């Protein structure tokens, strides 16, 4: 059923919540547990602004199981303004519209549908900025 697996990641998935270092201000995404020996309180939850630029992109035409109804879909590495890079789909974006360095913004969308007896998995995607 994969219920808990998706549930425990909801903050990062739904609202791009990563972590910020209380001392250096460094922002990281995705959030991670403290390293062995690292103080628990060094990293605090931090919601990233959701703006960034396309580092690279591709189009998935041979999808994995669970994504058969989506192709062709755009996937990208996005360099967020705060520094971290994330992997995500681009949405509301034509295949010939995207380019490296294109500014994008985060939206929360359906990532996949686990069927009539399963969850709808929601999470971040990116799209060209709506001004």
């Amino acid at each position, binding site marked *: 059923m994969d219920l808990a*697996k998706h549930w425990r*990641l909801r903050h990062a998935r739904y609202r791009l919540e990563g972590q910020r270092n209380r001392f250096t201000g460094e922002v990281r995404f*995705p959030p991670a547990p403290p390293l062995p020996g690292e103080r628990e309180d060094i990293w605090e939850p931090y919601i990233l602004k959701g703006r960034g630029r396309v*580092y*690279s*992109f*591709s*189009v*998935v*035409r*041979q*999808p*994995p*199981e*669970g*994504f*058969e109804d*989506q192709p062709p*879909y755009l*996937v*990208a*590495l996005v360099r967020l303004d705060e520094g*971290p*890079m*994330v*992997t*995500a*789909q681009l949405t509301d974006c034509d*295949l010939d519209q995207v380019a*490296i360095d294109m500014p994008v913004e985060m939206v929360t969308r359906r*990532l*996949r549908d686990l069927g009539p007896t399963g969850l709808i*998995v929601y*999470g971040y*995607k990116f799209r060209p900025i709506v001004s």
Partner: protein
Amino acid sequence: MRRVYIIGTGATPVGEHWDRSPASLAIEALTGALGSIPASRIGALYVASALSGTLHTQSQMAALIATAAGIPGVEAVTIEAGGASGGVALRQACLAVAAGAVDLAMVVGVEKVTDVLDARREAALALATDVDWEAVHGVTLTALWALLMRRYMHEYGYSADDFAPFPINAHANGVANPRAMYRFAITAEKVRNAPMVAEPLGLLDCSTAADGAAAVLIASEGLAHELCATPVRIAGSATATDTLALHSRPDPLWFQAAAHSAASALRMARLTHSDVQVFDVTDPHGIAAALALESSGFAKRGTAVALAREGAITPKGRLPLATGGGCKARGDVVGANGVYQIVELVAQLRGQAGVVQVNGARVALAQCMGGIGVTVATHILTLE
């Protein structure tokens, strides 16, 4: 630590083996590697398989194969490290023999991918990405390679066409390999006109996942010379890892694990980059080969594609690559690739590679990779 040698190799043809089980493939390869040596002399069995748990839905594959080989009771362990499984299994065998724990170790790489349909196979392969932060977005390994290819093109000013020499070389070499899945040559025009799989990657720059098994028999120095006329030494052996997710790395176009494992293996072999005469790397796409060569120190950054264009990767070039056809023409046997590499490079060092023979090859490098540069195993083979 004792010196470690390869004294036997075996492999099945790579392809769609509809009528055969993983055990059947494994036993054919294992039998070939044993030659006239009885299976009962195997001290430990290392089975590499990336997908047996997810596609064949069988865990403890090593016990299954030990039983099929008629040696139930032997120490047998299954190794899973994605596409690096074969190299990592070989590394474990080397450690066991070098440490003196066993004198004879068998490494078998086996993959059976055709029992499921495409989408399920793509999903299983994508398990080598970070499932929570990559695969959940519908990203495939092919798509991640495509992202790297596009960025590489952007950084260094190449076109997609510039990568064609990699699959062209792989297919040209595959013609000579009786075990290769695709034994025909392809042209730049065909590569260019192939349908897209994940832009900018076209169909003819994408390997095909296929069934197959390969095996190598590892022996201690004393036993190697007793049992084999032309033992090949494993002079260097190293594995390293990087972050599971590509996006977590400061520079996605640099494979730190490849750099580390190549440097460690060369250091262990007391050899330098210029000593290596023939290569095999995980090369499902041209970009994969290019980044492996660059990260391992065999080409300056941004130059591997230019070198390929100039013919350096052909059997007559400076960096002969994929002489057995590579992932593209031999067929991509995922967790078994790392063992097939050894089988093909041993043939090179023994001068048995026929028309793809690299003249005077005495030092070979095999490098296999799990995921996108996540786990990398590098081995240096030498002829003494």
